[in-house]
């Protein structure tokens, strides 16, 4: 394989993972913008999507139906969790809320461990077929599914935000929560909607990547952290930023793993995180709010 194909290979695998990171990052940003909370459990929503999918497909339910059902199941579960915990803890300090979402993430992971065990589960790729050759680089069909899904989902999200009531209400809450309330938009309902919408995004991401990376009870941990890193890179208050951050992270990781060292691949994401936090914590597109005294 010559250099050009190698680089193309890295680019393609970078875009694949980058798409996943972008979807998870988008989930973070939506929840953060509406509620101010950083949801450390975002990665677990992704894991739940993948695990539900594995179970439903294992029961013999056709793949497309399983996909829809899995997403709906995750959304319902997350909705219940939001009502039970986040809504109940509304007056808690930020650090308390952070610890709560960490606790949720841990608990969900533990329950998944009890239900599904430690074994990795294999999910069949959406379409059969061997690796496709693209200019000297190889790409599995599922990667194309991932990239394609990412594009479609982003377009759909944009459409929802721009043209539907719920989407516009969500944006209103981001811009001015008080005014939104005066307009009859309930912040509680928006918080619930934000959580459920983000859960759907993450669940889909988990389902779509599972055929490539296998589904395990702790897949949410790393992917969730990296999704968050992507969101921070892009700027926590910016939805296009989250997407760009995700893609950038995926690509940098792929090139780093290929050109430098694959063992430190995970470490690379954290180093990037620290770099961004130190140089421009508000991210590429973000703006820092300041506290009023």
């Amino acid at each position, binding site marked *: 394989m010559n250099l050009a194909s190698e680089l193309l290979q890295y680019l393609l695998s970078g875009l694949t993972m980058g798409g996943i990171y972008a979807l998870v990052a988008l989930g973070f940003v939506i929840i953060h913008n509406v509620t101010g909370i*950083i949801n450390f459990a975002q990665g677990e929503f992704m894991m739940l999507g993948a695990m539900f999918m594995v179970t439903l497909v294992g029961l013999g339910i056709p793949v497309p139906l399983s996909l829809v059902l899995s997403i709906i199941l995750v959304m319902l579960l997350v909705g219940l969790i939001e009502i039970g*915990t986040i809504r*109940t*803890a509304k007056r*808690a*300090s*930020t*650090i*308390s*809320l*952070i*610890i*709560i979402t*960490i*606790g*949720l*993430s*841990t*608990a*969900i*992971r*533990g*329950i998944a*461990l*009890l239900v599904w*065990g*430690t074994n990795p589960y294999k999910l069949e790729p959406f379409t059969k077929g061997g690796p496709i050759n693209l200019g000297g680089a190889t790409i599995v069909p599922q990667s194309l599914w991932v990239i394609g899904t990412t594009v479609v989902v982003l377009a759909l999200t944009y459409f929802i935000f721009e043209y539907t009531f719920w989407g516009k209400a969500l944006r209103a809450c981001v811009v001015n929560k008080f005014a939104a309330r005066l307009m009859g938009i309930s912040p509680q309902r928006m918080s619930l909607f934000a959580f459920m919408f983000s859960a759907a995004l993450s669940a889909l991401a988990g389902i779509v990547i599972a055929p490539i990376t296998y589904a395990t009870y702790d897949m949410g*941990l790393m992917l969730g*952290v990296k999704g*968050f*890193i992507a969101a*921070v890179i892009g700027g*926590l208050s910016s939805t296009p930023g989250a997407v760009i951050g995700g893609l950038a992270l995926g690509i940098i990781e792929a090139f780093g793993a290929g050109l430098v*060292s694959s*063992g*430190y691949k*995970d*470490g690379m994401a*954290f*180093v990037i*995180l*620290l770099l961004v*936090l*130190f140089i421009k*914590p508000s991210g590429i597109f973000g703006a820092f709010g300041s*506290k009023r*005294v």
Partner: protein
Amino acid sequence: MKDLLRRKRLRHSLIALFTVLIFALPFIISNNYYLSVLVIIGIHTTVAVGLCLLMGYAGQISLGHAGFYGLGAYASGILTSTYNISPWVAIIAGAIGTGIIAYVMGIPIFRLKEHYLALATLGLGLIIHVIFVEEVELTGGPSGLSKSIPPLSIGNLAIDTDSTFYFLVWAVALLAIIIANNVVHSRIGRALRSIHGSEFAAQSLGVDTGKFKLQIFALSAVYASVAGSLYAHYITFISPSPFGLMTSIQFMVMAVVGGLASIWGPIFGVTAITLLTEGLKTYVPLIYPQAGGEYEIVVFGLLLVIIMIFLPEGLTSGLVNIYERWRHRKERAHENP
């Protein structure tokens, strides 16, 4: 003024009483399993006290404290087994090194607030863990240090039994508690707590909040490092797995459950969590034989959520508050029959 002196004397007597109790325990308990659990509790208490100083009193957060714990463990492990350095020197070297690393890494990290801060500490802890796994020549990689770690010794007395370790570990833990207690009730402690109360106001009163955050971060890292060194000598073998994110979360659970802004909180929290963990390890396989791995993490997670929602001050203060409120209600019931 008299009230203050009375409170101070009460605190000191409690610490003295506790010291006597702790050192008397091994003469009552001779079962090695129980002693070993108590040793682990002692080691974790040291970490938790440092974490409480950082999280409870200064109001900061660290999601990567297992990293410092691991740095102490690996420093002791590597310096003693590969380079034949005296274990005591290794502990001190590890502590100083970890403190410096924490201070230096803290400079950019503590410019951040809240979520960003939490995430940066998480990233730091994870990077340290990755280094433990990847630097195979130095650390032995995922399979751990290949040479076993020599025991600590004072003169001719080797500290290699559960009971001798018990005394060492708890002497260290008590020292940690006494130091923390002194710091909290001093000008430094007030400055730290003022940062938690209102960083703007603290600065307006001349508190160099940046410097203080760094110092307390470094101190809590030193506590974790010393505990980690003790752990290494106790277990005599270390690998990267006890020094990852789950352990950081476990430490945080212990600190939170016990009560962050409390000197006694860490002991209660650590004891409660350790007993819970041991209990789970013993009894869950009886009900659920096919479950594998650390299912106690479910309980940890749920505990974090429940405590943060209902008892954010933790078990010690929280239970005291509940008791106080119950008592007031009883009193009022007597007044208005």
